């Protein structure tokens, strides 16, 4: 704040706003859109989940928490929740650790570091649904190149995306292929903010490379690392594109996730109330995970 601004702002503040009309006008378009298309739908989603809501019916009867009670005994919901949990539990640690390793390797500027950085980042800018078509093709048991290599090596060819044991791992690997670069880029930006002098001082004190990473680098990038992790968790809980395109949730629901199940309920079976209940479970899950992660990191901070 400049010296000039404070007397102008502070003393007048409680009697008169400085630019009431301009402020409200500038804010109007965004506020309307955020309220109508973000805030209201969240509330509406909760409201719908308390009804037997369907676009196909003329009335939407109120049924209290029955959708949630039904969810609790819906094996397809538990299956979708389980698959989503497995997907997250495997994806997030790998994405953060590999992203971190790559970030450390590529954070210094040299032509080959930036060359590899671009390669690892490139999937991030591609359309996932479109690239999932390509992946489906790559994994095709007859005309795909992976099958050709398996054939050449004498390994029996498997239809990976139709296999109950391999479809989910395939979806996970493709997810990592797409998103590792995202985490890497956040962490590279964070690493570049760490002052070189900190590392140098630690090195002069005789710290090894692991010690420097553990005691200098890691604490310095705690905040961005937390955000990268939260973003990875949130994204993984919403996995949809590659599942929809590559397996459609199959074989036999083995890759069905919360969002693909919600999509099916809401837009193919038109059970909107029930689908809204699934959406709310997902919402609560995301909030819980974010809060827990923020807690853990804060706790360590006090340590």
């Amino acid at each position: 704040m400049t010296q000039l601004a404070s007397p102008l702002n502070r003393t007048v503040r409680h009697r008169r706003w400085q630019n009431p009309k301009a402020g409200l006008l500038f804010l109007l378009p965004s506020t309307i859109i955020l309220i109508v298309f973000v805030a209201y739908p969240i509330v509406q989603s909760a409201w719908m989940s308390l009804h037997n809501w369907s676009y196909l019916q003329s009335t939407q009867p109120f049924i209290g928490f029955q959708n949630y009670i039904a969810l609790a005994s819906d094996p397809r919901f538990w299956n979708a929740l389980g698959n989503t949990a497995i997907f997250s539990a495997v994806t997030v640690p790998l994405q953060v650790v590999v992203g971190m390793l790559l970030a450390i390797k590529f954070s210094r500027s040299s032509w080959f570091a930036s060359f590899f950085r671009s390669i690892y980042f490139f999937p991030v800018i591609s359309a996932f649904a479109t690239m999932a078509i390509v992946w489906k093709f790559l994994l095709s048991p007859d005309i795909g190149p992976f099958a050709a290599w398996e054939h050449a090596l004498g390994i029996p060819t498997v239809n990976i995306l139709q296999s109950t044991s391999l479809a989910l791992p395939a979806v996970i690997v493709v997810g990592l292929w797409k998103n590792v670069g995202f985490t890497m880029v956040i962490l590279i930006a964070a690493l570049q903010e760490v002052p070189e002098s900190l590392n140098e001082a630690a090195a002069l004190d005789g710290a090894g490379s692991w010690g420097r990473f553990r005691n200098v680098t890691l604490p310095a990038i705690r905040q961005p690392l937390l955000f990268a992790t939260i973003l990875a968790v949130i994204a993984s809980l919403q996995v949809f594109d590659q599942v929809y395109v590559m397996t459609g949730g199959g074989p036999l629901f083995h890759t069905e996730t919360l969002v693909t199940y919600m999509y099916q309920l809401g837009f193919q079976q038109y059970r909107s109330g029930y689908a809204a209940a699934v959406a709310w479970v997902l919402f609560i899950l995301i909030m819980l995970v974010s809060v827990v992660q923020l807690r853990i990191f804060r706790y360590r901070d006090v340590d």
Partner: protein
Amino acid sequence: MSTSSLPVYLRHQRTPLRLTLTIIGWVVISLIALFVVFPFVWMILTSFKTEKDVFALPAQLWPAHWSFLSYSEIWKELPFARLFLNSVIFAGGVTVISVVFDSFAAYALARLDFPGKNIAFYLVIATLMVPYQITLIPLFQELFNLQWLDSYQGLIVPRATSAFGIFLLRQFFVSIPRDLDSAARIDGASEFRIYAQIMMPLAKPAIATLAVFQFMNNWNDFLWPLVVTSSTDMRTIPAGLTLFGGQYVVDYAVLMAGATISLLPLGLAFFFAQRYFVQGIATTGIK
């Protein structure tokens, strides 16, 4: 390699073990890099294959006969021109409108003093972390009530502002010295003039970052256009290609040509202006 240019902490003795580890590290990185680019290489090479090559057993990476047929067939087998136009209108429309609205809101939150400012700021923060998947079911109902399903306004308007964009630009505006706009205000300049002639020109890098980020996300988005549109004429490229690819008999070379064309705009932009792509994502971690 001269070690004197390296920072102190990297000036280790080059023991054979260390050297071996370094080499293994780069070999692993190169192998994974091959894995990362492979789908793109396969996609592009396949788009130049003849049908015979596509179905050759075992699969060949390199086309036996180069053919450009897919690139002319794509416009006939699919309403691809229409899909492309829809993607341009959707992603372009969202980008332009949201950059304008976001910068309006960001300017108000960073510089102006008015009732309800704090509430507005909390609204932005609260919606920042909300994934749109959660609002999808009621949004569909809302668009149905407005009779906006399967229309450009239905695709664009709900996305015409983003909490992320407002937040990003606000952070940037706050960092601009106040003397600049205070002086103009004392000279009697209107708030709109200060916004348009002082703040926006200074914010060009942040605007470019946001625009690239928005364009990329919407050009690539799948679920939103899939839900909002239903007729073939309103589909965007990812949704259109996916539905085409789901048909029983598929011309893979044509499909790969479509995928290659759809990657082209962002691929080229990435080649020339990589830093804007990177900045948009890097800021999500720093906020």
